[in-house]
């Protein structure tokens, strides 16, 4: 038997008819009941003031959280034998940003515009925090772009992207094989010495056990068709187990590069080694620092681990 728990509206079932009747009335009633409230004249000013206060609070929290990051990193380094969860315990989805999966289609590229398209070996590293990837932080070379693709309907996990070139998302991307790409390189393909890095989470505790002891080194792997389509000449893979939101998880990192220099490969290794849990602000704020775009079809850029 399939009840409303499984099927929602079921016109054939008594519950379905009754629900539909109440729903029809509710539609009318809610429209009638919700009042047209007056708007304060200074609403915009209040909103901007709130945003400014929040920004200041987060800045202070980030400073305070720096110590926590160091302690967490030290604790993980001192205890490499990170124990996975109890056998058979499913790791549920972590608490991520409040807007997970609801961002409308389309997005602009990363808000970090380099003056030129630098290679991965560029100096001036900065930290990117992927809040929706259970708050993973990673150090990226200066001038790189970041983007997070939230899961679309029926998809499970967000995907984080880092690239030495400008990224676009949603409607800013072309369609391929009849599907709108979730994320793409605005140049179309990787430039020489260009890199596109993909970050994913594995929440399976059994998988976590396999990756214990990994320190984030990158290893060659066979290029997949998406990397080839982007002009990649080399594909690398790395992973790292860590505690995220108090749970053992694995961050998988895949890099697709086009004729990378030694400097770029070194930078990639540093990037992989820098993967770590970000500090959580004391106020519990989870606003992602990485640019976010919605899901949709699974991005063809996202590798299948």
């Amino acid at each position, binding site marked *: 038997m399939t009840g409303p728990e499984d099927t929602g509206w079921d016109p054939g079932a008594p519950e379905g008819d009754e629900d539909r009747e109440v729903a029809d009335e509710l539609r009318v009633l809610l429209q009638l009941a919700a*009042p047209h409230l007056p708007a304060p004249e200074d609403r915009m000013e209040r909103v901007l003031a709130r945003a400014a206060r929040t920004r200041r609070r987060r800045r202070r929290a980030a400073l305070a959280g720096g110590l926590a990051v160091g302690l967490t990193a030290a604790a993980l380094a001192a205890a490499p034998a990170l124990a996975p969860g109890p056998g058979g315990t499913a790791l549920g989805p972590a608490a991520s940003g409040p807007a997970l999966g609801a961002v409308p289609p389309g997005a602009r590229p990363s808000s970090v515009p380099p003056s030129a398209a630098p290679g991965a070996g560029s100096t001036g590293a900065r930290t990117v925090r992927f809040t929706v990837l259970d708050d993973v932080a990673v150090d990226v070379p200066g001038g790189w772009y970041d983007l997070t693709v939230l899961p679309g309907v029926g998809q499970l996990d967000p995907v984080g992207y880092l690239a030495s070139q400008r990224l676009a998302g949603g409607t800013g991307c072309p369609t391929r094989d009849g599907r709108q790409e979730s994320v793409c390189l605005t140049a179309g393909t990787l430039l020489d010495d260009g890199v596109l890095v993909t970050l994913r989470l594995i929440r399976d505790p059994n998988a976590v056990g396999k990756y214990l002891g990994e320190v984030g080194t990158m290893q060659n792997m066979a290029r997949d068709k998406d990397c080839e389509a982007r002009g990649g000449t080399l594909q690398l893979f790395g992973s790292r187990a860590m505690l995220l939101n108090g749970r053992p998880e694995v961050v998988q990192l895949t890099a697709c590069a086009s004729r990378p220099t030694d400097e770029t490969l070194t930078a990639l290794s540093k990037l992989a080694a820098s993967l770590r849990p970000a500090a959580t602000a004391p106020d519990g704020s989870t606003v992602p620092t990485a640019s976010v775009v919605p899901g949709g079809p699974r991005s063809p850029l996202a590798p299948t681990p």
Partner: protein
Amino acid sequence: MRDATPDFEEFVAARSPRLLRMAWLLTGDPHLAEDLLQTALAKVWPRWAQISIDRPEAYVRRVLVNSHVSWWRRRWHGELPHDQLPEPPAAADPFDDVVLGQVVATAVRALPPRQRAVVVLRFFEDLSVEDTAEALGCSTGTVKSQTHRALQALRGKLPTRELLLDGGRRDGA
């Protein structure tokens, strides 16, 4: 502080009335509704440049709903969800706008916050099950079950369509 972009200002000016009504349905209080709306807009503003210009309202709506659920978890509002909904005022005229609002708000407010959000998104915003699931970050099955439970709870607690029609005829007479 940066000035708001014209896009954001235009969005706030154009869409706030609708969003405020939605916030009122969630909170049942005009002041809390305005507070909730401003909270949501303040969260959205720093990310406005990254938000698509196609459907920003969907994003704001989601932030608003999630902010409300978050409020519910963090704060005590003196409200408790009940299995038994309070009866509407017996002597009230259900076609008085104020009373109607109170009756509906009381009934909706008695729902747990997630069910309330589902009801508002599905039947006030008229979102599909899929869009509601996306807005709430849950499965379509959860939306369906929450909808069913909410409608079960609301059954008999709202003015009926017949009463509405009678009221309409009376008003037109």
